Each structure stands twice: as C-alpha cells, then as structure tokens.
C-alpha cells in the first residue's frame, strides 16, 4: 500500500546563515494493507518528518513515495488533496481546527467531504465520540478548550471516521489514560482487519507490542 524509496529530506532556512539541515537520507521501507508498522528511534531522528512527507505536509525533494502504486511526488497539489480526502487519514499530535466549530461538526467534516448524508455522518460521529468516552455534553463545544487527552481523542475520531486505505498516526495515545488507550488500540486493530495500512509513531512500548506487526528504526536513515 505504501512504499517509500530512497527518500531524503533537508530543511533550508533561507533567511538564516547556516540554515541548512539534513534530516533523513535513503529512507526505504513499505507498509502493506492490513499491517501496522511503527516508526521508532530517538526523538529528533526524523520520525514525524518522514510521516509528514508521506502525508504531503512536508516537501519531499528526493526519492519516491508510492501510495496505492501512485508516486505522490508526481502529483499536482490538487491531486494530492483529493488523494488525501479519499485514501489517507492523519492523526497528528496537535489539534489544529477552526475556533468555535463544534466537536461533532469537526468529526463529521471528512464524511461530508465524501458526500455522506448529514444524518449518516452524524450517526458515525456520535458512535465514535461515545466510544472514545467523550461526554455528549462536549459534542457541541469547540475542542479548543478541552484537556490534552480530550483533544487527542477528538483528533482520533476525526482520523478514524472513515476507512482510509492508509492511516498515519503520530503518537495517538500519548496523553490518554489506560482505559482510553485500550479503546484506541482496539480501534487500530479493527482498522487493520478492515485492510487499512497503518504507519504510526508510538512511544508506548505496550501499544507497539499489542498492535504493531513490525518496527522500522528511523535512526538508520539519519542524515547526521
């Protein structure tokens, strides 16, 4: 499903002297459908950077990234935005949403983007939020005022609302308690069974052991 070939990344801060940093070189790996793969390595070794390149959030200057046999580096921005909507979910560490938009609306959004009916989208969103133990009192509030754990669960709900072919998870369980962590692990397993390819960063070894089939050490690709 996902194939990363000889990918390299450097940042070039043009307004600074010596602003050029190489982060990753020669990254090669793949993730199959129905498989969950963990990216591991020390903090700062480029795990998130790699994941963001796959999502198209960071520019990838060298190498090839195939999603569903399509090299995303050949895609125009508009094609990439469609590919994202159709095939790729991304749960980031941070919640970045429009202020004053309610939680339920945010979770419904990816579904409505794919022309689900409002009623069905609402149904799916409510089921997810309940499952993630978010009190229904919170559904009509903007998540920007929520606690860290609550925000993370909203992010997860948004990323899990559809059955994406590829799911990118950046520390999805970092600020969750035991109970909720277990729920998220179950949800990941279910997505695997449904055939999603999942690439994740999990600092929590327990989670890795439970849901991940393989580990890829990103420090092997480190440019320094």
């Amino acid at each position, binding site marked *: 499903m996902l194939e990363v070939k000889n990918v390299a990344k450097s*940042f*070039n*801060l*043009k*307004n600074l002297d010596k602003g050029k940093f190489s982060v990753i070189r020669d990254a090669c790996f793949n993730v199959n459908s129905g498989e969950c793969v963990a990216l591991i390595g020390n903090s700062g070794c480029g795990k998130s950077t790699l994941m*963001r390149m796959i999502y*198209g*959030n*960071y*520019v990838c200057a060298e190498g090839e990234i195939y999603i569903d046999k399509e090299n995303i580096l050949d895609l125009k*921005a*508009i*094609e*990439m*935005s*469609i590919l994202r909507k159709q095939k790729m979910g991304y749960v980031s560490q941070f919640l*970045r949403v*429009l*202020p*004053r*938009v309610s939680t339920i*609306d945010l979770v419904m959004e990816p579904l*409505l*983007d794919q022309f689900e009916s409002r009623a069905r989208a609402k149904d799916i969103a409510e089921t997810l939020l309940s499952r993630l133990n978010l009190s229904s009192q919170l559904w009509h509030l903007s998540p920007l005022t929520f606690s860290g754990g609550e925000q993370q669960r909203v992010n997860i709900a948004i990323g899990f609302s559809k059955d994406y072919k590829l799911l990118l998870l950046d520390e999805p369980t970092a600020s969750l308690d035991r109970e909720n962590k277990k729920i998220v692990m179950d949800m990941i397993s279910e997505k695997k069974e449904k055939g999603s390819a999942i690439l994740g960063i999990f600092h929590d070894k327990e989670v890795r052991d439970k849901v991940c089939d393989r580990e890829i050490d990103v420090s092997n690709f480190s440019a320094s």
Partner: protein
Amino acid sequence: MEQILKAKAINKKFGDVYACNNLSIELYTGEVVGIVGESGSGKSTLLNCLSGSLVPDGGNITYLDRDNNWLDLLSLPEPRKRNLLRTEWAFVHQNPRDGLRMAVSAGGNIGERLMAIGYRNYSQIRAEATEWIEKVEIDAIRLDDKPSIFSGGMQQRLQIAKNLITKPRLIFMDEPTGGLDVSVQARLLDLIRSLVRELGLSVIIVTHDLAVARFMANRLIVMKNGKIVETGLTDQVLDDPQHSYTQLLVSSILKV
C-alpha cells in the same frame, strides 16, 4: 477533477510597476484557492483581473460555464460578462458596504439578484430571502431592516447571502473577514466553509491573514512584488515553506 477557471500569463502594470507579472493560475471545481502576500504584492489586482473588474494588459483567462463551454473572458461581450457576474459568479468584498445597498432593506438586498434574473413573484422572492437570511444565521425578523443598522459581521453575512442566493459556481473573495472582530471571524469562516461544501463552490480567496488561509484554502498561492513565489497544498506551504519570502512570512506570524 475538472478545471473551472484558467488564467495564463496575466500581466497588469500600473505605470512602470508590475502588479501582476506573468501570472498563471488554474482553479478546479469545488476547491478553495488562497492567495496570500503582503500589501502591494498584487493579490487584489490579480483577483480583480480574474473577476473581470480590471482588464489585464496581457494574458488569457478562460472560464467553464454551466453549459460546459469554455468562455474567453477577455473577449466576452460586456452583457454576457455582467450576466455571469450576477448568476454564475459572486464577489464578496472586504467592505460589505461595497457589496450591499445600504439604503435598501436586508430582504431587498438578498432578493436583488433574483429580481435581476427575472423573478417577478413577491412572495417567492421573500420566501427565498427569508431562507437565506436564516442560512447566514441572521434572525429572519431583521429582513426588513436596513443593513446600515447591522453590525459589521452581520453586514458581511448579509453580503454572502446576497451573493449566494442565485447559487453561483465561482466566488471571488477579497479579505472577507478583514474588518471583523476575531470572535465573529471564526463563525463566518465556518459558515463560508460549510456553504462551499454544501453547494460545491469553487473559491478564490485573497487574504493577508495566514490563519484564514490555513482554515479556508485547499491550495495556496504566495505572491510577492507581482509574482507567484510559491504554490502548493496549504498546510505544506505553511509548514514547510520553500521560498525565502514564504519562510519569512510564516515565521513572522504572531501567536497568542
């Protein structure tokens, strides 16, 4: 994925200064493209050239109309162009006073485009105006009030209702949240976003506010001195900018 608007090699000079220097841009159905850049970068000039309110010195602009014909906008007869402007297109101005008739009631403002395309049934016009004023979250009781007694945010929402009632396909927005309180801004952006989704609109939005661009636009065009310096997916341009100017722009955002 279909294109709806194509502009090639647009040039516009004011005196010796290029406001648009050989700009090409294309817009696809259902997408929102943001144009960002500092004051004087030429973004509003580009918008005005695209929407027909300014004639470029050179270049080519084509638009795919409702009947699937590509129209050459620069050679399109004036009546047809004005007809497009009140049926298939909409223009949301930064200052709602530029887009509203301040001496005409809210309902009259909203209904104007309907009457312009031949609606002659008062009750029907009023019913649609009521529906739209509620859609933009203004109490229908205000239908007969003049916009001059509305708040800035309400005026802006009224302008949007007035523009969207004829279900246009292509919308040009020039700093739509420019003069508004922050508290009103977010609601308005959310409203525009849901209308864009609901009606499958294609939008070109000019803003100098990168936060507005992040939440509204699928794609971003960064302009400086009349040139496009960078384009790409919105989050890519903002999170991993490649051009030195974009990097400067992004790193200069104030965070609360």
